[in-house]
């Protein structure tokens, strides 16, 4: 096997399970959606939605890199 990209290989990061790249993208998307929904329900009256977007994107990067 000559994988060009190592990230598709399963690995153990700070997430409790072994993940590969797809898993981490999937988890990021799930969290992104969840944050937005909860934000709209509970926080949007106080803070605009784009804060949620930035927050979840940051989180996504963290997960993709170190998850």
């Amino acid at each position: 096997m000559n994988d060009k990209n190592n990230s598709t290989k399963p690995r153990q990061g700070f997430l409790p399970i072994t993940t590969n790249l797809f898993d981490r993208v999937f988890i990021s998307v799930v969290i992104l959606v969840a944050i937005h929904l909860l934000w709209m329900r509970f926080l949007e009256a106080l803070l605009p939605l784009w804060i949620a977007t930035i927050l979840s994107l940051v989180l996504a990067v963290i997960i993709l890199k170190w998850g």
Partner: protein
Amino acid sequence: MQSPRTGWGLLAPTLIILAITGLLPFLYVVYVGFFDWNPFAATKDMVFAGVNNYRRLVFDNDFLQSLGRTLVFAVCAVASELVLGFLLAQTLTKEFPGKTFFRTVFALPLMVAPIAVGATWRLLTMPGLGPLPYYLDKLFGLNYNIGIFSDQATLTLVLMDIWHWTPFVTLVFLAGLISLPKEPFEQAQVDGANRWQIFRYLTVPMLMPIILTTVFIRMMDALRIVDEAWMLTNGGPGTSTLFIGIHIWRIVFPKTDYGYGSAMSLLVLYLTIVLCWLLFVAITSARQHEVEGMRG
């Protein structure tokens, strides 16, 4: 190890068909979910609405309640099916007169179309027409009317689902039980373990992957129940059995609120996928556990 190209080749037709019939409509639904679109509104065109549909959704009590009662229904039904299925599967591992016959007949409900299941149960439970209300009243003096009492209607739906799907769960469990290795059980008996201990420390852990897989496949189907419930209760009495599948149906069909209905569908799909993904992860790690346990 063979070349991945052959592997992809074998996989390709499946992926193509699912992409056309699954992914393409999904993308379209995602797209529509961002629009206000009802052909019978004053303006029949699609109007871009950003995340407004979702904003409405998280505050929509009808939707949230519907979600809640679907979850309650699915958990009740699947849990009962698991317990019943397990007990019945246990009995089927033993020999007794007529076993093959019973096992065959038992699988019958699996073969009935969901819409016919709903119709059958409706005939069974319809006040004035069905034997169930009649005999419950005659024998126990019980006023059974699923057109009036919401808890009875929910219970009837759970019973119907149990009737329809317990055979499936039983057969899967039976298959699992048969294929368990004999040695650990014999060893445990030699060691003087009682039945409960054997069940708790041997059977359950060894069956875990199967239990989880069954929960997985059953939850997935129970959460999107439509045909049976539609036929049996129409979501009534009141709105007490208006499961999410029927709720979406109402929004998309008679109300023709395509945008909102699409957003709602997606949110439900999202929740189902997350739930099933958690189960999936649990299954995978349970299997790994098992493999390691065998090796160790």
